């Protein structure tokens, strides 16, 4: 197998997730909704997903994203952290986010 130089990225609270250049988050005026355009598929993120994706700017760490969302949603960071990390791992596995 020739996969030696390629490894699955695993999320940690110090990861600084960044939306891939080829995954485009844009507002669609025809449908009045946010769309995420990717190589073969268009995603329609719900409000929470959208709030996470908007923070995937390569500057915020996962810890900071959790803190930011906890503030926005008036929730405890430790309650939402597992969901945020699971979401980011899934989007990394789909090659839409770099961790």
């Amino acid at each position: 197998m020739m996969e030696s130089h390629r490894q699955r990225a695993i999320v940690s609270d110090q990861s600084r997730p960044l939306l891939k250049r080829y995954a485009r988050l844009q507002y669609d005026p025809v449908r009045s909704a946010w769309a995420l355009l990717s190589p073969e598929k268009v995603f329609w993120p719900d409000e929470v997903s959208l709030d996470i994706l908007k923070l995937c700017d390569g500057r915020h760490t996962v810890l900071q994203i959790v803190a930011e969302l906890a503030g926005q949603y008036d929730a405890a960071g430790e309650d939402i952290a597992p969901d945020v990390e699971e979401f980011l791992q899934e989007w990394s596995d789909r090659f839409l986010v770099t961790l």
Partner: protein
Amino acid sequence: MSDTLLPPIGMLAELTHRCPLQCVYCSNPLELLKADKELSTDAWLALFEEAADLGVLQIHLSGGEPTLRPDLEQFVSCLSRRGVYTNLITAGVGIAEGRLERLRDAGLDHLQLSIQGAHAPTTEKIGNHRGAQEKKLEVARKVVELGLPLTINAPIHRHNIEEVPAFIDLALSLGAQRLEIANVQYAGWALLNRNALMPDREAVERQVEIVEEAQWRLQGILAIDFVAPDYFAIYPKPCMGGWARDAFMVAPDGKVLPCHAAGTIPTLHFERFGEASLTDIWAHSEAFNAFRGDDWMLEPCRSCDRKEIDWGGCRCQAMAIAGNAAATDPACIKSPLHSRMASLIGEANAIPSSNAEDFRYRRIGRA
């Protein structure tokens, strides 16, 4: 139709039928259009502008070989300006020096490269083109070097099904993000060559195991999409996500169709862009409305609890095998004609391997 009609999300633009390769599995129609029938640069640009207005978010630029159109950069740049996601579907042969850079600079979002064999002789045999593999690999390397995301499309059939593990290694070594292991769909030239292309059941089952293991092993490393072979299936695919539901295609001459094989349904008439607007065609074309929703469905589809999962399957396959475009896709186990699929596999497999390369190559004017 009781449901509200939603705008289309995706569009396949077959910019030309011309192609340097002559692949025996090609899904283009047998009656290929010559260059003089192709839409002009201005007509395509007007069509793309209207598609964006209509709500199309993603356009697959295909063919034939789309890079044979010298105006491709203009199309990409127009779509990019409108925020439409562009996916170039290319065979990667005959792309001039500097072209990929120009396409990237014009705003191309993604490139899908077809590779007919993991090994050069297979690629040369299927596409009837010497030296094709080397050119394809060169294109793949260049695409990755330019920072464009790369999908490798591997169309699978009897002559390369044993190369699936090698395709996976190749996609990894090239640095592709995605690999499509796409079993050939029998439309167009593939239907003409069906007996020469049909794999046997054991090979298909082995392939499924190999792909499932690799998908698990390579999670987060390489995305592997599997397009299952219809003739071996239990349930049909939701072809195009449902007829005229969220996507459509445009032929090189501007004819607008719900899918690339829809022209094989003789009762349907398709309008050309220019004779009518895309907006009109999407909403009012009789051909588009013919199989929308479920009013057209016959039994067993009509009362089936899967009808909004697969929308009755592929209309063109129903036409080709059941002789009726409104019939249940015979790929479905509930179709009264389902056993016909097994007979067709049997007929093809009965052909001795010495005759299995009796190909009818894809050529303009020579079906």
